[in-house]
């Protein structure tokens, strides 16, 4: 059997140490890294491409679900947390198991058995589906997470100017920079506050706070002029949506 490479993510050293200790009975599993926060976890997963992730939920900066949203590798995830309330969501993102702290060695081994089974079958849920699940239920978000290589950007939604669809990606324009993120525009739109963000065009979402004025430039077609001078095309239905909001 192949070696399984695992990463332990928890902000508490003691919580990591017990996973480490239980793993010492399993020579087939090698600890590739230990991370004490979400940023490190995203970087480690991107660089080390592990097969297995032990993931705490409540951590500084990025929580466990946000980490999952930002990584692309196909891997097995075991959530390890003291909170019961994330269990449903954990299985929605196809976590292999959900360990409630404190947990016994037997319970831990059971979780590992499931991981080995899953890795043996090598069947992974498509990333996009996992991503959608990771974001679901989070009503409207206050920040959007973007990863560039192993670097993570946290963009508060009020700092977003507009968002444009680009093939499989969305380009998020904020503070003079564009951030690419693999996501559907409609999925992103459903996460944003509908009182602030309007789909003004098939391929554009606008933060209405940035709008300076609207100009008619052809029949049924308008141009949104932003406060920084940027011009964005507004479709007829986009205009209706804007009118409704303003």
């Amino acid at each position, binding site marked *: 059997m192949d070696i399984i490479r695992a990463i332990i993510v928890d902000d*508490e050293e*003691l*919580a990591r140490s017990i996973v480490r200790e239980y793993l010492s009975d399993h020579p087939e599993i090698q600890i590739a890294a230990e991370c*004490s926060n979400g*940023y490190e976890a995203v970087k480690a997963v991107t660089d080390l491409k592990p097969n297995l992730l032990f993931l705490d939920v409540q951590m500084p*900066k990025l929580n466990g679900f946000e980490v999952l949203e930002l990584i692309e590798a196909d891997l097995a995830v075991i959530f390890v947390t*003291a*909170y019961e309330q994330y269990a449903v969501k954990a299985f929605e993102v196809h976590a292999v198991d959900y360990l409630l702290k404190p947990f016994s060695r037997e319970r831990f081994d059971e979780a590992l058995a499931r991981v080995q089974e899953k890795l043996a079958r090598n069947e992974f849920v498509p990333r996009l589906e996992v991503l959608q699940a990771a974001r679901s239920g989070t009503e409207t978000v*206050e920040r959007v997470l973007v990863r560039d290589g192993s670097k993570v950007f946290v963009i508060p939604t009020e700092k977003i100017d507009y968002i444009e669809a680009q093939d499989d990606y969305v380009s998020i324009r904020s503070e003079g920079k564009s951030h690419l993120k693999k996501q559907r525009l409609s999925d992103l739109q459903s996460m944003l506050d509908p009182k602030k963000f309007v789909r003004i065009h098939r391929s554009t979402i606008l933060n209405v706070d940035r709008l300076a004025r609207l100009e008619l430039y052809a029949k049924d077609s308008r141009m949104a002029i932003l406060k920084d001078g940027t011009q964005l095309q507004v479709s007829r239905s986009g205009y209706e949506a804007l009118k409704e909001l303003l």
Partner: protein
Amino acid sequence: MHPILSNQERLAVYLIGWLIFGVMLAAVLALPRDFSWLEAGTLAIPLTLVYGLICLSSWYVCRVFPLQKTSVAQVFAVQALAAIITIAVWGLLGSGWVIVLERVLTFVAFRTRVLAKAPLMIGVGFILYSLTAAVHYLIMTFEASKESDRRELQSRIFAQEAELKALRAQINPHFLFNSLNSISALATHNPSAVRAMTLKLADFLRKSLRLGAQEMIRLEEEISMSLNFLEIEQIRYGSRLQIVQRIDDVCKDCLVPPLILQPLIENSIVHGIAHLLDGGTITLEAEWRGSVLHVHIENPIDPDRPRSKKGGLGLDNVTKRLRAIYKDDAQLQSDERDGAFRIDLWLPAQTNLGLDRSTSESVHARLTE
């Protein structure tokens, strides 16, 4: 709102009372045979009823000069003046009525005979006015005590609710589970640390149960419980959690409601330290200023942390509890600025020094130094 005019039943009872007075007055006039029964009845009954209505206005006088806020002499002076004015108005109306009766019912020498009875009428008027004023004062006292009962009951219920909530929130299950997980992690390699943490945890649980059941505890006990809590969290958070405390010795005997600081300290970890990669320092200060106990809690905070929907619930509970216990005499302020979260708490500085002379004297000595 006039207590009698605004309530039909009360008004009916009131007017029936005055009708009886009217009949009595008619009898007083008719029995010595100075007036016929018809004369006495047509004079006394309508006039008394009208007087009853006029006397209702004494409510406004009573309200402006309530018994609690006015000296006895003032009450008498004001009410006497009001009585004179009321009687004068009544007298004016009465004269009109006498003239009408004399003309319409052709009573002989009615005016002269009524005038002869004027001193009696004035006397009756004075007594009846005084009676009405007394009734109004009675109603006022009754309603005030009902209102204060209601308010007290409400604040008691509220205090109890807040107490219960505080106690339930006190032993945060996740705090327990995480601590137990730490103990489990320490078990293999560090048995003495397991023992230390178990003892700390037991200590904390026992303190919070024992102190939580009391109405007031000494600040020193509350702080020691909070520090106990922080020490347990320090085992979990390691070097990410630092504690600085500056507690004036004189404050230690101040009485505070139990578990009033602990939720604030817990907040500073859950919403502050836990979101910071490198953690930070929680500062706890207490000082005695005049008649006020001032407690200050400060912790670093990540301005970009995800806002939890529950944020501020702990603060809300503490504020509600303070209000229930101290009404407007306690204050809690919080503000977030430059990556720091600050809480200031002002409480009336109370001690139970009367019960303990030696402490009382030593605190007094320290205060006068």
